[in-house]
């Protein structure tokens, strides 16, 4: 547009001031983007949780174990398609800060229940052939530099080995990848039969069950039916959709979403104040120029547009640079060095960021722009 040149030149008037304003907008959007990635990391599992999966645990507490025999009973329940058990091993690899989940499972069941864990046929077959075999997610394999064929020792904390020692030795036979960006690829799965024959206690007991229902719409109903089946038994169950289960954990960490939103809001509010004030001042400074433009024939709305145009240009430059920088920083990886299951800049937040750029431009610029619009030529022209 022919007016773009005018808007652009006006911003070059006080280069330092324009630079500072752009920089503060940049930082606000950098913060927004980075915190969006962190919030996503905390809420990771929820988005990719299977809509057709339930988690069934001991009713009293998650640390209580359930009998292995519940599996076949659950599969008889109408509405249930398949059930598999998982147990929390909770061992330590080298040192406690190298935290990752380790779980004994039945291999075929795992891939049936979690089709989002992708593995080559070769690795899958190797796992089925090797009793002490283990498959690991790509993220932890890369983090610890594991190669297929490595022997991996894990220190048990609760599950003492039958031999009396605390050390369990596994063979890495395969690596799995997550199908989606949010899929957890930091887990370590070994075989349940190996676990059962090697553990010193707890024979026949497992941690919890993952159940796939026929009809996701009836998930809550099916969950209730499962609980009813085991009510009044020595080990009662609590079944709930996978997403809800994970959300419960996130809620325990703290209402992260709310905290982050408040911080971002505070940052934006601060920047808005400063930008708005700067814009108001530039309008004031240019009173006679704006009046001159009106005198030679620019309409009231034209002058409004000019000021808003400056506001938008500032916001677009600062905002896109900020979002871009956030993208780059986020791609550099997990700031906590591996404890977050995922770390990426969600596209929906990127789009939200773009909307916010527009909103900021409008809010900061509208009052000064209206002031410019209402300038009375005769009053303003002299000084």
């Amino acid at each position: 547009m022919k007016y773009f040149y005018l808007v652009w030149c006006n911003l070059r008037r006080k280069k330092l001031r324009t630079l500072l304003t752009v920089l503060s907008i940049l930082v606000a959007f950098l913060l927004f983007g980075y915190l969006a990635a962190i919030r996503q990391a905390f809420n990771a599992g929820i988005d990719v949780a299977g809509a057709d999966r339930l988690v069934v645990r001991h009713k009293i507490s998650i640390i209580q174990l359930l009998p292995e025999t519940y599996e076949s009973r659950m599969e008889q329940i109408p509405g249930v398609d398949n059930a598999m058990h998982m147990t929390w091993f909770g061992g330590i690899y080298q040192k406690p800060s190298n935290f990752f989940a380790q779980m004994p499972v039945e291999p075929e069941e795992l891939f049936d229940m979690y089709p989002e864990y992708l593995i080559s046929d070769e690795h899958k077959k190797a796992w089925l052939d090797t009793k002490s075999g283990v498959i690991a997610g790509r993220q932890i394999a890369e983090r610890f530099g594991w190669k297929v064929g490595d022997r991996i020792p894990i220190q048990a904390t609760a599950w003492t080995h039958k031999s009396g020692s605390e050390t369990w030795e596994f063979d890495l036979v395969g690596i799995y990848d997550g199908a989606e960006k949010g899929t957890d690829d930091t887990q370590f799965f070994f075989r349940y039969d190996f676990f059962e024959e090697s553990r010193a206690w707890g024979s026949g007991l497992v941690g919890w069950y993952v159940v796939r229902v026929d009809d996701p719409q009836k998930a809550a109903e099916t969950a209730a039916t499962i609980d009813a089946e085991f009510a009044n038994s020595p080990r009662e169950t609590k079944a709930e959709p996978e997403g809800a289960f994970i959300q419960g954990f996130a809620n325990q960490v703290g209402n992260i979403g709310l905290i982050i939103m408040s911080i971002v809001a505070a940052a934006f509010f601060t920047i808005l104040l400063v930008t708005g004030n700067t814009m108001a001042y530039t309008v004031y400074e240019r009173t006679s120029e704006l009046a001159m433009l009106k005198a030679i024939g620019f309409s009231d709305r034209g002058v409004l547009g000019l000021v808003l145009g400056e506001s938008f240009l500032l916001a677009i430059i600062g905002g896109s640079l900020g979002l871009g920088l956030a993208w780059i920083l986020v791609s550099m990886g997990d700031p906590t060095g591996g404890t977050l299951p995922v770390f990426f800049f969600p596209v929906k937040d990127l789009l939200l960021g773009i909307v916010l750029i527009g909103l900021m431009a409008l809010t900061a610029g509208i009052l000064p722009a209206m002031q410019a619009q209402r300038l009375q030529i005769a009053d303003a022209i002299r000084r």
Partner: protein
Amino acid sequence: MSDGRGNGLLVNLDSVDKVFKRGSEEIHVLGGLNLGIPRGEFLALMGPSGSGKTTLLNLVGGLDRPSEGTVEVGGERIDKLSDRKLASWRSRHVGLVFQFYNLLPVLTAQKNVELPLLLTNLSRAERVRHAAIALDIVGLSHRAKHYPRQLSGGEQQRTGIARAIVTDPTILLCDEPTGDLDRKSSDEILDILQALNREQGKTIVMVTHDIHAASRATRTLYLNKGMLTTEPEE
């Protein structure tokens, strides 16, 4: 651009009052004023400060409205136009020259002259061409790419005049155009204005307190206490 009918006047003010409100006070700047300006006249308006010269100029140029009375320019009743129509009218019919030049410091001389053309439908190439012509008329082609801060006072005012004539307006309004200039520069400016009037037939209304400037005009009127006279008040 239609010609004025009736009495061959380009500008016709009839029984014009102008009242300003300062808080609760009312200031009557102009009262029952009549003014007729024929096409091709170079009119100088003189008077003590505060007499309302600028106010009168603003009324002629459609920069302000009268409290009472009518203002007719080029056959059009501009006191009846809406603000938006007035702005549009000004862009086509009025050229303004200010005492303090009012150039945009962020634009070059050439871009400053092009400014009024942004309001037209001319293509970029045509805008550049018209601006170049205007700058040539005022003798500033060699300074086209310079910024206002790089120009002397006289050069800045010449740029101002180029901007004022670039749309080929019906009437040229100048508010103390030499007020901020030294004698030499003043003369240069007045030479240009006179040339525009004599050679191109431009109708010019100039507010000034400088007798030498007024002597260049074809007619001088004096404004005192809101009334126009042909003789200065003593």
